[in-house]
């Protein structure tokens, strides 16, 4: 059962990484427009010359 000393911390770290990533998505406004983002990813149009400033 000694394997548990590795496995439990690993599972906690992985879970914690998932949580941290979720917090990041939340902070960077990725849930503001779920419908729009779902449509945008399918759009074939690209902006080759985005505004610079």
């Amino acid at each position, binding site marked *: *059962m000694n394997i*548990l000393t590795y496995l*439990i911390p690993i*599972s*906690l770290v992985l*879970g*914690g990484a*998932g*949580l941290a990533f*979720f*917090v990041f998505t*939340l902070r960077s406004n990725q*849930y*503001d*427009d*779920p*419908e*729009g983002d779902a*449509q*945008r990813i*399918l*759009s074939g*149009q690209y*902006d080759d010359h985005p*505004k610079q*400033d």
Partner: protein
Amino acid sequence: MTATLRPPASACPACAAAPAAQALAEHETPREAHIVLSLPTIHCAACMSAVERALDKVPEVRSARVNLTLKRVSIEADPELTAADVIPVVQGAGYEAHELDNTALSATATDKAGRDLLMRLAVAGFAAMNVMLLSIAVWSGAEGPTRDLFHWISAAIVLPAVGFSAMPFFRNAWTALSARSLNMDVPISLAILLAVGTSLWETSLSGEHAYFDAAIALTFFLLTGRYLDHRTRSVARSAAEELAALEVPRAWRVTDEGETQVPVGELAVGDLVSVRPGGRMPVDGEIVSGTSELDRSLLTGETLPVFAEPGRSVSAGEVNLTGPLTIRASAVGRDTSLHRMADLVAVAESGRSRYTSLADRAAKLYAPGVHILSALAFVGWLIYAGDLRVALNIAAAVLIITCPCALGLAVPAVTTAASGRLFKRGLLIKDSTALERLAQVDTVVFDKTGTLTSGTPELTNLGDFTRRDLEIALALAQGSSHPLSQSLADAAREAGIKPEPLTDVTEIPGHGTTGIWRGQDVRLGRATWVGGGQTDRTAAWLRVGDGPAQAFLFTDRLREGAEEAVTALKAAGLKVILISGDTTPAVESLAKRLGITQWMAEALPQDKSTRIEMMSRDGAHVLMVGDGLNDTAALTAAHASISPASALDAARVASDIVLLGGSLAPIPEAVQTARKATRRIRENFTVATWYNIIAVPLAVAGLCSPLIAALAMSASSITVSLNALRLR
């Protein structure tokens, strides 16, 4: 028409943020302009890129991003750019656009609450997943030090997670308890705290049963319900904010220096206010100069415009039709008739204030029941076994099993699904119990003007006129902005009529239009001015030279979907009644056209609400559909109410559902969806009750292991969520 009056900076009348934003703007010159436009008609990826491309072509625009979920575009631009500059750009791309202001401020505030909930939900979800993994090991037979280790690790995860995630429940429960009342959050908080407490105690004694997983799973499921509830409400709120932001709270004050645009709130009694054709009266007052005609349909339901001349008194909310008017304010702000009407609404006993929602009724039965049951189990086991530890363990198990997990999810999941479905059809649910009340409706009362009819006149007797007369009439009508003239001109053009050449065409505001045709005087206008006879229908009179005056007769155009809505409602077995403030012949002819057998004409606002109260007293559940100020009291008195988006602000505030589109057709479907939703809520309650009936005896008997608790809880929560999703 109102576009010219739309203010450049703020359009949100009750926005507390507006003065603050203005103060901020004076303080420092902004380095960039942030413009938010509402785009009600966008719906697809192509729309998004079309709008963004069009805006990006404007050199001052730094960035433009469309939000499809909220149907808005937010634009970052150089400070000199205003919304008035970009609206034509978007309209040029083929999309309707309205300016939204300062709503951005309040939108971020509501967003913050949503994010806060989402963060708590994520933490609870993370903790629940990890604790479940550990619990599975315990359930499958871990023993001795391994089990203790797992329990301690679970405790280390759950304690901070519950402390953070379950905070909203603890806070609400505390508020309720300090007000000496019980709400759903009291048993929830007690269950969570007791479960964590006894589990800690058990673990410290290396006991077998720990309910850490149950405590955190409970928090997770209940937070899901809360979050769904919050989202439904914030969508409704932001849409309602948008409607409010479209109102025009400004007026033109006339002073010696000329005309200045001021907020309506700054007007004082005695001020002179100029109202242009197409504008709405901002205050009550008396006409000082100018003649025109007034459309009072929003206030009284009359479709016929009234003649306006100096000395005549006007009320806030009336629309000036033909000529510019200057009025002297006699009552402003809260004293105007508009607000007095709103006070009438406050007096009318509200149908919804007497209504207790299904969830509240369930909670009233539920909360004391749970506490009594778990206390009884505790006392019983304490007497029977004489062991505090066993008794406490069983009391915790009973609280966890009975905890209103499914109940907490049952209602929000259904309302989210139902209001999402209705929102797609163009109905905005403003009140949380509106769906339940709508489901009970058995009588539908319609207002006429502006609700069943669109308020625009339609010519009925084009065929009675000679081609020559029509050509003259068209020539006279085409220059005028009067609704009757415009309708006449449209009808004539559609019939292929070309205007006759006339000279000296002049519009005399409040009377009509006159001109010279082949040396003869021709007139089109009101009966008294043209010399026409009496008619009880809406009419414009035409006289050519010395010939007899002839009447163009008009009826109100039906609102789109009105016929279908009435037929479908009748087919669904609902009683349909028409109550209007308009004249008897007008109401009668419309009732006949739509096949409505019960109607009432010339009703005063009080008549409408008393009539509805009488019906309610006889046991009917009335749905009121209306738009005018004269309907507001009735809208409040009714069991449920719907108003179109074109209605006055006061009417929209008084009603619990707003029709966003122009058509009435979604109303029968809304009733059907509401009925279905209520049925689902009841089903969900039944499901939750059955889970309890099966699991509670086990818990009281002391047979309920943490595994059974976890299974019962998750299974019931998932069942009710799936059942709610069937509505979509």
